[in-house]
């Protein structure tokens, strides 16, 4: 995924924050659920069609002082994975 892409969460998908660090993305159309860690939740909450991937990474680095150098690649792969499952699309300009 291009770092200038602006991914947008599928509005049908439910983010369910359970307790502590545990969260689930639930696709009601398929019944599939995907476990998410806090970084995944942080990113998911910014998949609003306005943030680019690069901007999400910038915000992530600001929020997490110990974000690793490969954070940008990880976020891109995270978004690609979500897109492959139909959980994320892209805002058309």
């Amino acid at each position: 995924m291009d770092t200038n892409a602006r991914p947008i969460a599928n509005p049908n998908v439910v983010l369910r924050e359970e307790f502590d660090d545990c969260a689930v993305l639930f696709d009601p159309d398929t019944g599939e659920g995907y476990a998410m860690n806090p970084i995944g939740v942080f990113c998911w909450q910014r998949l609003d069609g306005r943030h680019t991937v690069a901007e999400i990474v910038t915000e992530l680095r600001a929020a997490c002082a110990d974000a690793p150098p490969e954070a940008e690649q990880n976020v891109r792969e995270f978004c690609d994975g979500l897109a492959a499952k139909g959980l994320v699309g892209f805002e058309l300009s």
Partner: protein
Amino acid sequence: MKLMNTPRSLDLAITNRCNLRCLYCYHFGGADDVGRDLPTAEWLRFFEELRECAVLTVTLCGGEPFIREDLKELVEGIVRNRLRFDVLSNGTLITDDIAAFLKSTRRCDSVQVSIDGEAPEAHDAARGKGSFHRAVAGLKTLQRHNIPANVRVTIHKHNVHHLEEIARLLLEEYGLPSFGTNAAGYFGLCRQNAGDIQLNVEERSLAMETLMRLDRKYPGRIQAAAGPLAEARMWKEMEEARRTGRPSGTRQGCLAACGGVFNKMAVRADGIMTPCSQLPHIELGRINHDSLRDVWQDHPELQRMRERQAIPLTEFEFCRGCEYVAYCTGNCPALAYTLTGADNHPSPDACLKRFLEQGGRLPVES
């Protein structure tokens, strides 16, 4: 145990009405039997709150859910609010039209149909004349529309000698992947008809033996969360643990059987929230008036129900001197309530010691 922010699922009694009056129905004759239904708009508003709470699934029950004239509108509200659903039904009101609609939503996990016999005699004895053919027609309609259909067989005096034929019909003739079993429990109308419908100790022993045999014949295809098959499996393990002196497992030795209050809640047909559809007398609040999230997190009755799993069984006079106490979990609090008047009590119905003292037999592997 940590608590989720909101329940993951809810059982919703969307109607108090039913076209049948099954002799063992848990709904009628108890606190669940509220005599009225909520208007469509109330349910639709509540579904919006379920969305805000990120609830994932609802089970539509009653009464008979397919009796609601506005069922499509309710299901559309469920779909609109990002939920999946399943339905518990007697099967008799399922039409091609409603089945096609359910399929079109892509959100229906399953429809459970109750079938208690391989022929009208055993089924209709508890459910009313003509209900067998109509339930089977409903099941076949679901199959025709490729809707996952779960069959539940409730075991009672009139079908306990028919279990082999029922299994053959459902698994071989109808080609179901599996079916579920339970037994008529001491709830609702069953309390009035217990002598005519509930299994006695001998019949319960027979049901356990037959179901264990069928479980070997059809591996993995007969399910049970309660009733004779579940009891046979659980009690045989308890007996083995007692015999070998195995250490007690996690949660054993306390009133820990029910984990439902950590995952789900229920709503009666009048909109009153309850911990479980089997505990309809515990009123937690009213939908659209009280916050689901607040009730779930803070209601003292729910907290009390969650804390019961720390209560040791040795505290109960009922359990004194029992050799199985270290391996028991007290079973269903709702059944404990209807039998003893206290939900914080082991269920006498699920007591292995009492079952054996009354002449009950555990199945022997052949």
